[in-house]
């Protein structure tokens, strides 16, 4: 019964995403390759002093990304620090520096890790700060992915596109229109959209209650569409004002997956070989469905962890979503860089919790965050191509581009960054006595393997820009606030720098024509190799720590 219901929901998602794959992917390809600029865009370029026809070298592109993100970081920090003097302050005070920095880093890095409680930020900060970043940080990720696609598509080119153009087009032509449509759907379903502040009500039992209102639907839609995940309310998508019914939960999953699953088409169209897009799509889909099935199997059985203790798998889950919608949402949010939750991940079975961690530790590539999922998957494909090339006796090439020492250096560094951040973060937390004291005494509500899982989840979430958390962990301590902020920034921008350098090195190359000796990169064999590489690399790096945490707990 549960499996049938799961299958029906997944089939619905597949149908919707499948119908939109081609139009959506081709539309995005057009957006990023069109020579025409809208009036509002021309106006924006004029204000910024950008010549939209002039493309940038990878270095200039990267500088633009970094400057823009730094400006966003400072602005968001400042907004929080002065929020009590801004309109609609709701009586809230200014946010303290550490939390403000963490939040700024979190939203600029498309993570939406919330060290603050959602309701403590004013409407002004939510709208002018968070919602704006939800748009532009998502558009930044998409821009970087498109730059990498251009690198693979261009021949002997010194440039990979113009970041400002990609940023503005991604925001205005892709994210904004879909957000407006999506918000209307959510409002229809009962998601709140007002500026009412807290409403005092008297309940039936005579108690008094404060009901928080706010511009929820508008933030909700971009939170999912841009794979951001920062909820308006602290309870995130499990709050009925954000996510009132079972079908809105599935609709939100659809919004999360729409762009990441359509970008392979954009890739295929822009490189002129749509089969390559399908190959990437299938690789993502196989990993997505496989992981979903494993998570569902663990949850439906209900062994180990909180459900085991409670004697029921519904512990920490909403009755209006049930097991099925909770599992779908949990898999979707951790496999993308969203981090929105409609159930408490900490309360999943031990091995279910492990699947959520694995989903993130996979590098969030199936299908991953908007843009970041595609470029992460393409880097894995580069590594797979390298191995495959050696196995067939040819200097490896992907889409006619040679994978030489410099490309391998960039791809290898890319896969090094995230594991190093996660392992270092967890090891420091338990290895340095002072930090261990803070973790054990202040942050952790659980001991032993489950305590370790909570810390591991936090760093996996931060370094992968996911943003969800095991709720048993109090991350507002100075150590976690600072270290996770650093993990989020490094986990976002070092890979971006490496991807743009890779894009530059590909763009500079000529294309080698394909022959019978060229390894086809669109066949099932290569798809399995890419998926296998992704899984194997993750498994090898994280097996020991997972064995100590969720596996040990699950096998107890």
């Amino acid at each position: 019964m549960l499996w049938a219901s799961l299958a029906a929901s997944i089939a619905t998602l597949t149908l919707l995403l499948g119908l939109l794959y081609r139009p959506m992917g081709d539309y995005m390809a057009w957006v990023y390759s069109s020579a025409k600029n809208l009036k509002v865009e021309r106006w924006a370029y004029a204000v910024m002093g950008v010549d939209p026809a002039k493309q940038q070298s990878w270095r200039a592109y990267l500088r633009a990304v970094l400057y823009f993100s730094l400006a966003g970081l400072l602005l968001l920090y400042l907004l929080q620090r002065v929020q009590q003097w801004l309109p609609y302050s709701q009586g809230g005070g200014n946010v303290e520096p550490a939390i403000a920095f963490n939040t700024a880093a979190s939203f600029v890095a498309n993570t939406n890790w919330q060290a603050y409680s959602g309701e403590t930020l004013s409407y002004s900060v939510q709208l002018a700060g968070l919602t704006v970043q939800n748009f532009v940080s998502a558009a930044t990720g998409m821009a970087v992915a498109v730059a990498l696609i251009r690198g693979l598509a261009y021949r002997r080119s010194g440039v990979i596109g113009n970041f400002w153009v990609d940023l503005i087009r991604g925001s205005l032509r892709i994210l904004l229109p879909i957000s407006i449509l999506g918000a209307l759907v959510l409002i229809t379903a009962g998601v709140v959209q007002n500026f009412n502040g807290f409403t005092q009500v008297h309940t039936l039992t005579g108690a008094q209650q404060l009901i928080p209102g706010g511009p929820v639907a508008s933030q909700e839609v971009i939170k999912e569409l841009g794979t951001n995940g920062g909820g308006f309310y602290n309870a995130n998508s499990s709050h009925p004002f954000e996510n009132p019914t079972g079908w809105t939960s599935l609709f939100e999953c659809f919004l999360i997956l729409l762009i990441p699953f359509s970008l392979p088409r954009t890739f295929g169209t822009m490189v002129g070989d749509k089969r390559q897009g399908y190959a990437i799509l299938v690789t993502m889909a196989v990993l997505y469905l496989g992981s979903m099935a494993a998570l569902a199997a663990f949850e439906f059985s209900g062994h180990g962890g909180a459900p085991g203790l409670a004697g029921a798998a519904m512990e920490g889950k909403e009755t209006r979503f049930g097991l099925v919608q909770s599992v779908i949402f949990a898999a979707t949010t951790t496999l993308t860089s969203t981090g929105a939750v409609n159930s408490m991940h900490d309360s999943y079975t031990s091995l279910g919790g492990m699947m959520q961690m694995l989903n993130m530790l996979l590098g969030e590539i199936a299908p991953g965050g908007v843009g970041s999922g595609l470029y992460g998957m393409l880097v894995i494909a580069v590594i797979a191509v390298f191995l495959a090339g050696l196995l067939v006796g040819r200097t490896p090439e992907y889409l006619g581009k040679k994978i030489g020492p410099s490309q391998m250096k960039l791809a290898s560094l890319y896969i090094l960054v995230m594991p190093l951040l996660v392992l270092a973060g967890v090891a420091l937390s338990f290895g340095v006595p002072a930090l261990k004291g803070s973790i054990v005494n202040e942050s952790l509500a659980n001991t032993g393997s489950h305590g370790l899982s909570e810390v591991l989840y936090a760093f996996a979430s931060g370094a992968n820009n996911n943003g969800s958390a095991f709720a048993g962990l109090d991350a507002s301590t100075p150590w976690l606030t600072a270290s996770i902020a650093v993990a989020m920034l490094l986990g976002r921008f070092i890979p971006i720098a490496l991807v743009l350098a890779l894009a530059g090195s590909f763009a500079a190359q000529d294309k080698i024509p394909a022959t019978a000796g060229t390894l086809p990169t669109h066949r099932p064999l290569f798809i399995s190799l890419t998926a296998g590489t992704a899984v194997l690399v993750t498994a090898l790096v994280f097996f020991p720590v997972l064995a100590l945490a969720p596996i040990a707990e699950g096998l107890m």
Partner: protein
Amino acid sequence: MSTTQVKPAQPQEASTPQPASHRSKLMSWEQIRTALPGMFKKLDPRLQWHNPVMFLVWIGACLTSAIAAAEPFIGGPQASGGTQVPVSFTAAVAIWLWLTVLFANLAESIAEGRGKAQAETLRKTRTSTPAFIPEDYDQLQDPGALTVQLREVSSADLKLGDTVVVSAGQLIPGDGDVIWGIASVDESAITGESAPVVREAGGDRSAVTGGTRVLSDRILVKITSRPGETFVDRMIALVEGASRARTPNEIALNILLSSLSIVFVAVVLTLNPIASYPASPASLTVLIALLVCLIPTTIGALLSAIGIAGMDRLVQRNVLAMSGRAVEAAGDVTTLLLDKTGTITYGNRRASAFAELTGVRRETMLQAAVYSSLADPTPEGTSIVDLGHELGVDVKPDAHSKVVPFSAQTRMSGLDLADGTSIRKGASSAIIAWLQEDGGQVAAVQAAELDEIATHISVSGGTPLVVASKQASGRGEILGVIHLKDIVKEGLPQRFEQLRAMGIRTVMVTGDNPLTAAAIAAEAGVDDYLAEATPEQKLHYIRREQEGGALVAMTGDGTNDAPALAQADVGVAMNTGTSAAKEAGNMVDLDSDPTKLIDIVAIGKQLLITRGALTTFSIANDIAKYFAIIPAIFVGALPGLQALNIMGLHSPASAVLSAVIFNAIVIVFLVPLALRGVKYRPMNAAKTLGRNIMIYGLGGIVTPFIGIWLIDQLIRFIPGF
């Protein structure tokens, strides 16, 4: 002198057995014995440093040895992960870590040793010999230096551009070009081929190599290399592996292996701080064992052996690659430029039919054809006589007839009979010119018919050879045409089919006219042809292919070929060729066999595949090692992890030690594979990939589960384990 009379170093068939002197068994006890000193010498950290993966093992071995030595004084081995370990545990791990390093050294030593034996033979040719420099040599007045005094110097004192005289029986003192004379030279010291070859001034066979011996005649040689930089010197450096520079693919692979090692170092370094919270920390020995098992030691240990063995395989086929880069490029080649003559067809054309003109008796034509060739020693001539015999013509020249050999001026050969009749055969233009000299006439009807027959033969890929006779009176007539046919080597169409499956285009290069070229190209099954090819056209063709992204390989011997050889990504110069050609190419084929280009491509691919296969195997092995070690480390504190011990290993200590032992001996088992190379079958990329993933990927996952389990069955009998 007939240009076809002397055919030095006949091109050989693709399957010609290699000279026995270069054949060596893959691994013999003798080789292992000679490799032993090198195995220990390579323990020097300054040498280990060049291989980051093995250097990590080396450091691990040093650390565990120090711990094993210190343990008796600090109260026995430290408990690991909440489990007591046997007293001999650390020492056992240390021993096996040293063995891991030694096995890697052994692999490299054996690979190098195979080259060393050959280097020894080559060194013998390098001994200083006397050289004779003509005093006041005047190239114009006395090109042969026959009348001047000779000054004796040591070959070590020869300078670039010196001219030396070498007579029969003397060793050639240095690399150079013959500038006067012709001689037969014994080059067996370098090629292993005992049959002497001819070297002559001018033309494409002028290069001589220092250390080879002149057997007959006298030649003047202009020295083209400095002492110490000769061909033999470079060869010695190459076969010894001394000058082996890393290739781009090897560098890229090293980057991947290094980054995997870094990740695993991070995994191991962070393990204890993390484990200290839910479990208890592992001992340093166990951590080192875990690290060594995880880092890709199998491929790290064998990487340089694979590279050296790849070069060695070329050397065994008598091909010298000037750089490893060239070998790798050979694996990537997408276009092969093959000379028609000697590569695609046998060097010689054979007579396949006689056609007489209307009005000529067939008998007359056949007799004339055989007469014209009786004294012609070339293979073409012999084949005409043979065909005549088959058709029942049996004529013998009488004592008074006069042989007219082929000359470059007349472009004809034949016989002047005693009765004054002259018989000639040659290209149709030459024959017509001969008939028309002294005011002779060729009937228009005859000329038209001749043209028709000749065109017909050309279109079918043959060469028409016209036979004519002229009586003493000066009246001549055309008798008929001999159809000379190019014989395409057996098995080539299938071979080209395989190449096509591998994604390689074959292009036939020939001096023939386009009609003939097209016919032979169709018969041989090549993808394209370049007819009436001049060196410039070859160069142009290569450039055009390269602009389209293709990698081009070609063979060549003449000075004319030098620009094209230099332009090609893989240029194989024939050893019989000029030194200019040898300089321009990046490989030299000592057998001068152009067919070998196909083998070279296969060796290049094999080199890459062997690396890829062992890398895949090495990484896939880690899964089983994790299942052996991780439960073993922490089962003391977290008993639930016993469920992960799916191999049912006896105790934590035996599990760790078994994994370490497996990790070491798998290197030994794979040495033969590394030296021999993974078997390469020509098939398309997708099939090759599927096959190799099955063998080395899945095999790499399964093998260690079995291996570690087996080793554990023995280890459990050691007291304490």
